């Protein structure tokens, strides 16, 4: 057991409402200082994994465990996980009417401080503006309600902005590239790359290899039927793009047939 990684062990999970299995014994270790990518076809359980890590109540963990720096993630509430260093960039970020971006971020940062302590407003705004400039975001976004009336690309950029200010130890980016044009993709990648440090692990969940041209992962995993079926380096992603997910499926079936024989 390591205190320097996010460790997923034999994770089984179902949809709470109807018991449909989604994850079937998933193993993955994300050490600090590395970027891992999870790729997989639609319905393989990629986004479910992200939501389960964050603590979404629509899913039930039926077996296995997840350790965050050695601590059992499932002993923690949603917000405790976040404060322990876990961040999820949402595939579909929510709107919070009437709450400005700046106030939301301040509240989130304040929640990490001991009782009675407050954020220094001057240095907060200085930081906020610096990160926004890196993401090519207009400063008027500080005063706008969180994600309200934002375009798809603006929402994704806003997720990265939140990540940059909250400085998580482990960041899970759920299809952050979806819906982005190439310019926006480059900007988002710039933000993520700026966050690559030896103290931080990043898990990219993506459908397409395209993102990995701009954020080069240390490892690539392929998720199918709720399990990691292949792991490798960057070339695995390229191979996937060339051969498609069917290639994995066929290889799997062949392996299963061989094992049965």
């Amino acid at each position, binding site marked *: 057991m390591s205190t320097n990684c996010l460790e997923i062990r034999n994770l089984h999970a179902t949809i709470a409402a109807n018991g449909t299995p989604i994850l079937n014994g998933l193993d993955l270790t994300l050490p600090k200082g590395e970027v891992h990518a999870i790729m997989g076809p639609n319905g393989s359980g990629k986004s479910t994994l992200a939501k389960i890590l*964050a*603590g*979404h*109540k629509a899913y039930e963990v039926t077996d296995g465990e997840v350790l965050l720096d050695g601590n059992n993630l499932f002993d923690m*509430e*949603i*917000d405790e*996980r*976040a*404060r322990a260093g876990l*961040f*999820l960039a*949402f595939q579909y*970020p*929510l*709107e*919070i*009417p*009437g*709450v400005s971006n700046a*106030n*939301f971020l301040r*509240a*989130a940062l304040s*929640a*990490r401080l001991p009782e009675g302590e407050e954020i220094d407003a001057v240095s907060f705004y200085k930081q906020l503006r610096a990160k926004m400039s890196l993401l090519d975001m207009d400063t008027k976004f500080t005063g706008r*309600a969180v994600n309200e009336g934002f375009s798809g690309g603006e929402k994704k950029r806003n997720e990265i902005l*939140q990540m940059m200010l*909250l400085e998580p130890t482990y960041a899970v980016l759920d299809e952050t590239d979806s819906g982005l044009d190439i310019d926006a993709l480059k900007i988002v990648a710039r933000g993520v790359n700026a966050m690559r440090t030896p103290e931080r692990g990043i898990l990219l969940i993506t459908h397409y290899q395209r993102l990995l041209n701009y954020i080069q992962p240390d490892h690539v995993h392929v998720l199918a039927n709720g399990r990691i079926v292949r792991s490798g380096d960057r070339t695995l992603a390229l191979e996937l793009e060339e051969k498609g997910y069917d290639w994995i499926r066929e290889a799997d079936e062949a392996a299963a047939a061989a094992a049965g024989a």
Partner: protein
Amino acid sequence: MTTETATVQSIARERGEIGNFRFPEKHKYDAGFGLSERTIDYICDVKNDPDWVRAFRKKALGVFESKPMPTHWASDDLNTIDFDKIRYYLSSGDLPKRSWDDVPDEVKQTFERLGIPEQERKFLAGVEAQYDSEAAYSNVKEAVAEQGVLFVNSTEGLKEHADIFRPWFGKVIPTGDNKFSALNSAVFSGGSFIYVPPGVKVKHPLQAYFRINSEQFGQFERTLIIVDEGAELTYMEGCTAPKFETSTLHSAVVELVAMKGAKIQYITVQNWSANVFNLVTKRGLAHEDAEIRWIDCNIGSRLTMKYPGVIMKGRRARGEVISIALANTGQHQDTGAKMIHAADETTSNVVSKSISVGQGRSTYRGQVLIPKHLKGCKNNTECDALLINSNSKTDTYPAITVRGNQHSTQHEASVSQVSEEQIFYMQQRGLSEAAAMSLSVNGFINDLVREFPMEYSVELKRLIDLEMEGSVG
């Protein structure tokens, strides 16, 4: 949000914590329990009321007794009020205080416990604070007095300034307007009287704090504000009460008169303990080119019934009601607005937002009347309700009567619910469920909160945080 029983229990616990404080009471004068002509005589004798006031009160008593409870349209809960178990007049007998140093320590302590921000205490220099039914502290800021502004309690107003007071007293809200305005007219004590002379723009808002400190003691303050031609005034009223074991009745009457071209803004933030009946009649009369704005926030109480109104009597007069209501378990906020257009080209605006938490219920009741013989009148009504828990309740009764075709009216209403996905998103950023809920609720009312002065909006946010703490199970 899933375990309702736990929610209710935690709210009960929470509410106990919030309101559970009181201070020793000393009452020199006590009218005893129940209401009769003898009670009225006692009050008149103690207050040394002029004969016309005694006659006014006695007539009002008759009206009160003849009127049935309005339960044909309002909550049956009104029937639980036992008028024989209420003490209608209590007073410490102290004369109103003139300086902050003279204010009894226990009153100061109360301000302390209410958590009035330091910033706000600065304003106290210009404050009239009411302790029980008489003003324990009253200090008109010198600059305001120098401008000829009268800011006194209503008892002093009717005695010392009868020439200004009497022509308007009971004219905006007649005694028989409703059962509770009649009750107030019979037993009123305390409240403010303000007169602003023509052309005077009162720079700082005048403030009054009210509180109740006696079990089974109804508070019946009576406020009359007259702002003369072209003059301007902002008045702020904040109420909060300690916890009682039995129900408490609070029934105020507030009358505003804005003469030609005058502007009045009346701001209220109320946080009653959960056993208070708060049955208030508030109405303003706006003459030509005058403007009256009611900015109203209701938190707490068992039942609040309050529909601030504006009668736009003069041409181009404007009326506005901006209100926020928060109903928690065991509470019913029955609030709204009354806009009576009585002249051409008059404009009214109503924006109401309500939040129902736990098993709380909020009701919007609005009346807009534009008669046929007028032209060029406008009304805009928006009412939005937010439901926090699955068993929270809201209902809306807008009555908009527009006759004739030379007017413009708009009405929008919405009901929304805090979504679990939104709370999940906020929690994922590190906010506790309660903090996420608070932020969400504060966002919902944010555009209205901006209408409140800074120090009130801070207080409002804190009150909402307290209410939301108990709402998550």
